[in-house]
């Protein structure tokens, strides 16, 4: 490894950003409630996202109860069922996954990993959280208005979303749209922070290509979100006007209960285009941070540099770019021009190339590595398997001819739950086990963690594999009950009941995890400094958990990339990013001190 001589280093500008005057809180309220510290905001985001996610989890239990035992639960009527479906989907995708990955992990990790004291716009960052909280509370409020929350499905397709036959069409749908608009405004404030912090607040020596892949994933996902959410924003505003003012942006001429409505001429497909122009990048807004985080988990816990770092970065960027040209593969059956379908099928399948590259590199990182079967490692391996599984069914659905018969069946449900439900969640769990000691200073309970992993991992397959099969049988999604359906055998009901039981057991395991997190915060084993012996900067703070301002009086200086594991000759098997090179290395005798961990390409 070539070492840049100290003299050359001194010729550099002193730091990429002048050390800024931090906002110092004066009272308990500004320190923990209206805090401008990214770490506190991160915890606020995570707790809020977790709480609303718990609501969505309970909704999924209720749906499963209805599907597994259709005649047993009188308190779930069709209206409730549609409301559960809609809220479960919307909460999980936007209010939980997006908020947790970007608002939670992004806020906590970006400043620490790039060596900044805080985000560049702390006030805006605080505002971002409070607007997000308002959006969440507004969403919850829709249960307490006449008609309840909207039951339009998470895609909110017009015209049915605002017609009176759909649950929540009197005010639930308006509340949903306003809440989404608020979420987007709040997210944009946070997103500006993440992007500018990565680009302008990196510490001395932290080049873009020395950033951990976690930062690359979150950064690219934020750029996607900033460019994709406007589509949902425009769609939401226009649909609100259709519903409130009676405009006809999306509403065609329509007869309701034998009466002509005032609407006419609008284009429901236009909404679908806007929605999916947001909706497909949204998949990668969730997936890219997961890709980045899982790369770091694998590398740390296998004590090996990530294989093909540059390719991993490029793949993240290329996947992000491609995700903007595939949206209409969600619309093969919408009646659009078949040639469009051909184009979008091609782009969709091309995404498999950089994605497969990432999977190979994760696997090759583990090749001959010193794998530690810690909890984060278990979840990371679980992710790779699950993501491949969900990704392969994506190849099926990406082809027009295969997609058409499978559209709107349970197969689609199984596909997206595997690829953007279970897979990112496994990463989130792994990441929480990994960074919990950094955030709280205590370890999570190992035994409960292993129980949580095995039940969740095996359980997810027990739940979703049969659902693929139900899809092949032709069981449609979004149906309250099957009734007398000749082409679906009675055994499908048995399978549904089985899935429900499995789902309840997996749900219980999540409660164990919740208990573990709450209990360990006060009585977990005290974590030593840098317990996983990680290279990256977030573990090198003078105090753990990091104090206000993250770094002591001096910002850290970065000498190497974030994957210096298995370094021969070093005192331990890793060298931290901010550890100065030894004198021997500086004098040129560097090959024995720190040989290149990866052969030059």
């Amino acid at each position, binding site marked *: *490894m*070539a*070492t*840049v001589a100290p003299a*050359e*280093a001194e010729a*550099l*500008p002193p730091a*990429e*950003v*002048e050390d800024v005057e931090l906002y110092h809180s004066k009272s308990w309220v500004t320190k923990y409630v209206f805090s401008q510290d990214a770490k506190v905001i991160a915890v606020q985001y995570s707790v809020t996202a977790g709480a609303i996610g718990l609501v969505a989890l309970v909704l999924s239990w209720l749906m499963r109860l209805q599907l597994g035992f259709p005649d047993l639960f009188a308190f779930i009527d069709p209206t409730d069922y549609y409301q559960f479906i809609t809220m479960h989907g919307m909460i999980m995708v936007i209010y939980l996954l997006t908020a947790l990955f970007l608002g939670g992990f992004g806020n906590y990790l970006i400043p620490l990993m790039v060596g900044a004291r805080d985000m*560049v*716009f702390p006030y805006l960052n605080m505002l971002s959280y409070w607007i997000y909280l308002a959006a969440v509370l507004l969403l919850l409020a829709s249960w307490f208005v006449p008609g309840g929350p909207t039951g339009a499905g998470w895609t909110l397709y017009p015209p049915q979303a605002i017609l009176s036959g759909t649950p929540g069409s009197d005010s639930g749908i308006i509340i949903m749209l306003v809440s989404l608009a608020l979420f987007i405004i709040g997210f944009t404030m946070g997103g*500006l*922070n993440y*992007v*500018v*912090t990565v*680009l*302008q*607040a*990196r510490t001395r*020596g*932290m*080049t*873009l*290509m*020395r950033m951990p892949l976690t930062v690359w994933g979150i950064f690219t996902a934020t750029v996607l979100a900033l*460019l994709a959410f*406007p589509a949902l*924003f*425009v769609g939401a*505003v*226009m649909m609100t*006007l259709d519903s409130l*003012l*009676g*405009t*006809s*942006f999306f509403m065609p001429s329509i007869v309701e209960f034998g009466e002509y409505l*005032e609407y006419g*001429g609008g*284009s429901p497909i*236009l909404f679908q285009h*806007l929605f999916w*122009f947001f909706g497909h990048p949204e998949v990668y807004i969730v997936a890219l941070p997961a890709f980045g985080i899982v790369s770091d988990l694998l590398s740390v816990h296998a004590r090996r*540099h990530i294989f093909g*770092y*540059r390719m991993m970065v*490029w793949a993240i*960027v290329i996947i992000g770019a491609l995700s903007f040209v595939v949206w209409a593969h969600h619309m093969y059956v919408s009646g659009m021009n078949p040639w469009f379908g051909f184009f979008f099928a091609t782009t969709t399948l091309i995404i498999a190339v950089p994605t497969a590259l990432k999977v190979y590199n994760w696997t090759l990182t583990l090749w001959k590595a010193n794998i530690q079967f810690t909890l984060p490692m278990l979840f990371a391996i679980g992710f790779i398997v699950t993501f491949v599984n969900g990704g392969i069914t994506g190849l099926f659905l990406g082809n027009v001819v295969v997609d058409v018969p499978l559209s709107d069946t349970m197969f689609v449900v199984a596909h997206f739950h595997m690829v953007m439900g279970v897979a990112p969640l496994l990463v989130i769990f792994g990441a929480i086990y990994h960074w919990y000691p950094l955030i709280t200073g205590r370890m999570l309970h190992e035994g409960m963690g292993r129980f949580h992993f095995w039940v969740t991992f095996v359980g997810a397959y027990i739940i979703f594999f049969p659902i693929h099969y139900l899809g092949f049988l032709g069981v449609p999604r979004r149906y309250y009950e099957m009734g007398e359906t000749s082409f679906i055998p009675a055994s499908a009901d048995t399978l549904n009941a089985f899935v429900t039981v499995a789902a309840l057991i997996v749900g219980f395991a999540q409660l164990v995890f919740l208990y573990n997190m709450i209990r360990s915060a006060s009585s977990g084993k005290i974590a030593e400094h840098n317990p996983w012996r990680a290279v990256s900067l977030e573990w090198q703070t003078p105090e753990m958990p990091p104090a206000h301002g993250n770094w002591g009086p001096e910002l850290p*200086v*970065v*000498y190497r*990339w974030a994957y210096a594991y298995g370094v021969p000759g070093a005192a331990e098997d890793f060298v931290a990013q901010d550890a100065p090179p030894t004198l021997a*290395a500086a004098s040129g005798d560097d090959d024995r001190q*720190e040989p*290149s961990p*990866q052969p*030059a390409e």
Partner: protein
Amino acid sequence: MNLFASLSAKPWQVQGVIADPSDGDGEFRPPAYLGLKVFLAVATVIFSLMMVAYGERMEMGDWRPLREPWLLWPNTAVLILSSIALYWAVVRARLGDRDGLRLGLLAGGALAAVFLVGQLAAWRELIALGYFASSNPANAFFYLITGLHGLHLLGGLIAWGRTMTKLGRGDEIARLGASVELCAIYWHFLLAVWLILFGLMLFT
């Protein structure tokens, strides 16, 4: 391209303190400049998507082109003047002329407020003539486009107000210069957006 130089670096080969090729020559610019640029990208996407939707909806048979109220012409002139006033404020700030800066900033903000009132008056005129949002998609798009553009300008006026506060409490002119410059960039952007949107509505 520096970005490509950044992305093709081989981080495992070099150790030591190095600078990133894309970071430029070390000249320090407040992060707010980059933040504003990113926000302008977001706003550009919003307005572009609205124009795409406009184009798509126009193709439907029920579209009856709207005769834009004549008031939009003087409004446009006011917005142009507002942008010029802020540009002048930036120039005066660079020269260190505090009074000129105050004058330019005040004129820019006041003219922007006049523009917003003018837009509201145009709305009232249309409503008085019976052109409601629900009566035709062209009308609906007119209210949507002018409304969203107006809201963006209103947001700009908040930033403008904060700059006025800083001016009022006597911040030094070097620090003020950045705030005024950011306001001016945003104003020019919104002027460009308005000219494009106005043109789109005039010619369709």
